[in-house]
């Protein structure tokens, strides 16, 4: 029961809790969004790059086969 009281008082924070905790929550969410969007962009671009490089390597390999050495 004492724990419940302590948790409640942390949320309440002498009446300021309703401002303080949303502030921290919003900031946390913004930081998380920044991180997630960065990682997604990085994965997408590097995946695209890998795919294109593979295709290009295949094209060049095919060209090397079909063009006989001079």
């Amino acid at each position, binding site marked *: 029961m004492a724990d419940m009281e302590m948790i409640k008082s942390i949320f309440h*924070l*002498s*009446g*300021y*809790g309703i*401002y*303080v905790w*949303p*502030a*921290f929550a*919003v*900031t946390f969410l*913004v*930081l998380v*969004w*920044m*991180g997630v*969007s*960065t*990682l997604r*962009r*990085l994965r*997408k*671009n*590097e995946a*695209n*790059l890998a795919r*294109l*490089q593979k*295709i*290009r390597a295949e*094209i060049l390999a095919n*060209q090397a086969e079909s063009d006989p050495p001079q």
Partner: protein
Amino acid sequence: MIHFLANPARFLRIGAIALPWIWTVTAASFGVGLWLALVTSPADYQQGESVRIMYIHVPAAWMALMVYTLIAVASAMALVWKHPLAHLIARAAAPLGAGFTLACLITGALWGQTSWGSWWVWDARLTSVLVLFFLYLGHMALSNAFDDPDRGNRAAALLALVGFVNVPIIKFSVEWWATLHQPASVLRSGGPAIDPSMLWPLLLMAIAFAGYFFALLILRVRAEIAGRKVETLMAMRGDEAGMGG
């Protein structure tokens, strides 16, 4: 050092080495900073527990200004000295700066409601920070508004430089005009005016935010470099397809 980092491959190598260190510092600063901010630091005698918002509002504000300055410097390096990575750094930094500015505005509104009884007021500092937020959005929009990405980068760089006049306005607005927002307590000519028990969490959170920013910046620039290579390859595929048949 700037020219040292101009080579994309070198930037990536150095970035890869630095990244774990940056993450470590960031995590440690967040951990200790949040502990000090939320648990051990005292409540303010005037503002009570709401002063704890300061530990995220002020670092966010510092980051908002620092990132814009970084973008302005990168823009100058891109336009004047044609530094190859500068445009990419500016592109990568803008969304991060916008995020910090948004966090600053929202936490500021919450704090203002308890301190001043008002969510928003059109005083010089709040207005100029809102302008900063729009400048970030404009930079992001302009960078991506053209079919030719180079044109977008150059236009955004110009916007960044034109808008830089806003940064000293933000910084000195609380000194030049009678504003509701309180004057500087840390970065001022007489040195910090706040108690160490509050200064330490503030500085640690600032370091945490900065570390987080630089880590994400390195990753984003990596993404931009990859994106540019993709564009080049797409263009080349067109040429090769035309030639080879």
